[in-house]
């Protein structure tokens, strides 16, 4: 927030990073805002105030409540022992091997699935964008996996990999892949990728529509090969759309739950952090530890979002500092 913001700005600052007013460029001579600009800015804040208030009511309360819980020893099995313990729950969780294993698994799933989905989704998006005949049919069929309820899809994957009866298990020979860590993780990631690649493709297709046909023609005339047109012209123009797609998918992937729940139930160290939090909170009824994990997940997600939003700032063409008017 810029220092010359009016008091109105400060009062509503709790609206979070999304409600940020584009601050004047730093490092240049700062011009005091004119009367009209200031009134306009105030109106802007007033207009988003109702939405901000609703957001606060439905998100801030549970968040703050779980932060409050995370600072207590609070196990529903021993309700008498409830007590304020400060940060000791955080120490317990962060020094626990299970947490870090789950964190590692989550990161692995996030990075691998998002990366693979980006590549596949881009391919799919280009195919969908280029098809002229039966465009509607191609798009609809590509979206089917995304339309299926995750739990249902997860069960069908589980049955497919069940030794003896599943077609995939039969296809890949003996053994029970869902009971071994590496293969189980691979199957979880496969299920995730299968399910959400269409979503990625859809977001990327919106980005493809942003690339003017003339730009690609111009690049052909300038001597670019198909690959050079893709990397040097399409990708830079699509960058904002790619970042949105990556942000959505990364946040989603980091909270992976349903597929793991159905496929392995977290056995053989395949738990994600969400899975672990669920086990502690709902199954273990340990509100203190469970809330601590939830808060940690929230922080991780917030960091991811923050990093992406930072990247966005410079993504839109023409909005960059370099090359601006002098």
């Amino acid at each position, binding site marked *: 927030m810029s220092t010359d913001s009016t008091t109105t700005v400060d009062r509503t600052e709790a609206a979070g990073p999304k409600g940020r007013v584009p601050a004047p460029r730093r490092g240049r001579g700062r011009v005091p805002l004119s009367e009209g600009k200031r009134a306009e800015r105030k109106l802007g804040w007033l207009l988003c105030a109702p939405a901000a208030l609703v957001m606060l009511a439905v998100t801030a309360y549970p968040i703050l409540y779980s932060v409050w819980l995370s600072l207590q020893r609070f196990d529903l099995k021993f309700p008498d022992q409830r007590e304020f313990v400060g940060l000791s729950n955080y120490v317990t969780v962060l020094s626990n091997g299970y947490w870090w294993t789950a964190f590692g698994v989550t990161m692995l799933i996030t990075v691998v699935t998002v990366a693979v989905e980006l590549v596949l989704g881009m391919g799919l998006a280009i195919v969908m964008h280029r098809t002229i005949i039966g465009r509607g049919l191609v798009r609809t069929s590509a979206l089917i996996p995304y339309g299926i309820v995750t739990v249902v899809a997860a069960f069908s994957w589980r049955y497919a990999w069940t030794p003896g009866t599943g077609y995939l298990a039969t296809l890949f020979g003996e053994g029970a892949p869902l009971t071994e860590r590496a293969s189980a993780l691979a199957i979880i990631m496969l299920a995730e990728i299968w399910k959400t690649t269409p979503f990625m493709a859809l977001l990327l297709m919106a980005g493809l529509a942003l690339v*003017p046909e*003339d*730009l690609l*023609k*111009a*690049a*052909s*005339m*300038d*001597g*670019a*090969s198909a690959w*050079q047109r893709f990397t*040097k*012209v399409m990708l*830079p*123009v699509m*960058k904002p759309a790619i970042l949105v797609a990556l942000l959505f998918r990364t946040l989603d992937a980091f909270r992976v739950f349903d597929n793991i729940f159905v496929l392995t139930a977290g056995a053989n160290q395949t738990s994600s952090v969400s899975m672990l939090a669920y086990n502690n909170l709902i199954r273990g009824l340990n509100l203190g530890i469970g809330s601590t994990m939830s808060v940690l997940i929230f922080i991780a997600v917030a960091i991811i979002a923050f990093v992406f939003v930072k990247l966005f700032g410079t993504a839109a*063409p*023409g*909005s*960059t500092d*370099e*090359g*601006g*008017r002098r």
Partner: protein
Amino acid sequence: MADIVLDKVSKSFPDGTVAVRDVDLEIADGEFVILVGPSGCGKSTTLNMIAGLEDITGGELRIAGERVNDKAPRDRDIAMVFQSYALYPNMTVRENMAFPLRLAKLDKETIEQKVSEAAKVLELTALLDRKPANLSGGQRQRVAMGRAIVRSPKAFLMDEPLSNLDAKLRVQMRTVVSRLQKKLGTTTVYVTHDQTEAMTLGDRVVIMRGGAVQQVGPPQELYDNPANLFVAGFIGSPSMNFLHAAVEDGKLRTAVGDVPLGDRIRRELTAEDAPRELILGIRPEHFEDASLIDDETRARGTEFEAPVEIVESMGSDKYVYLTVEGERASAAELEELAADVGTEDLTGSGSSLVTRLSAESTVAEGESRRIWFNLEKIHLFDPSNGRNLTLHEGRAAGALAS
């Protein structure tokens, strides 16, 4: 630099649209050729086929004597300027202009030198580090030109490069384009739907309609000797007046009085299948206030009287709109032209004549005035096929030629 030859080039799209049919065109080395026609007539498609952006479905395209039908755009060594400018938004002006050179794997110094040279020619030096988003329309247009000239390609192709500029800038950029082309002497094919641009820019103009070439020639020649109704109506601003004319006893009966016919035209009209009705075409500048002309001139034309609707004084001369009675001239070509211009400029309607009279004329709105027009300059068209009947060996000879 190279010559470009289109030999019966055709294009039909997969959906069955025939956008270009049998276009024959020889563009000499260093020539500046304009493709002009109403929108949808296949200009861009023709240009894209020369560029290699569209496959050629019939005929042959030769650049510098070599058949290039199946060559990719990058192997044709041709540069193109688009109406939308098509600048890469993520690159600075410098990077935009250097892009084709970088792809051609030139070394850094050569690139730097060529870019700054082109920037100097186009007065872009101060803008080299800006992004396209921070440039005005005219500046973007110049960058697009710069990107085309840095490579010294065999030919330039331009697809309505000035259409997105405002009127004043368009006139300014027209001279920039013209000067640049003269200076570089590179073969250029320039597409426009604006007949003023076509008249002022090129060495030769190609007029297209419905995918076919109507006439090819230097601008003045197309203006003076239009081969058909379409060319006559398309070239010129304000455009030619068209009137219905009935052939009766070796004369033409029209809304501006009877028009006598010379032997040659009369002979043509005696044929068995000759049209009984014609379209008379008169350009605005071939009218004059009857009180201002000497007897010698008067003898070359004929006079009529008509109510004056509107007088627009341009200082150097006056545009006078006259109301005339009579049947409207009708032909497919005229309808097409009217549709392209927009209905408000229906000069072919037959009910209103646009004339350009001397500034000395005392003509006033509301009065009825005697107006003279030059019979040696009029054109007669066959409404069924649009052919100009007054053309003789390529030259328009008027109605009286014998």
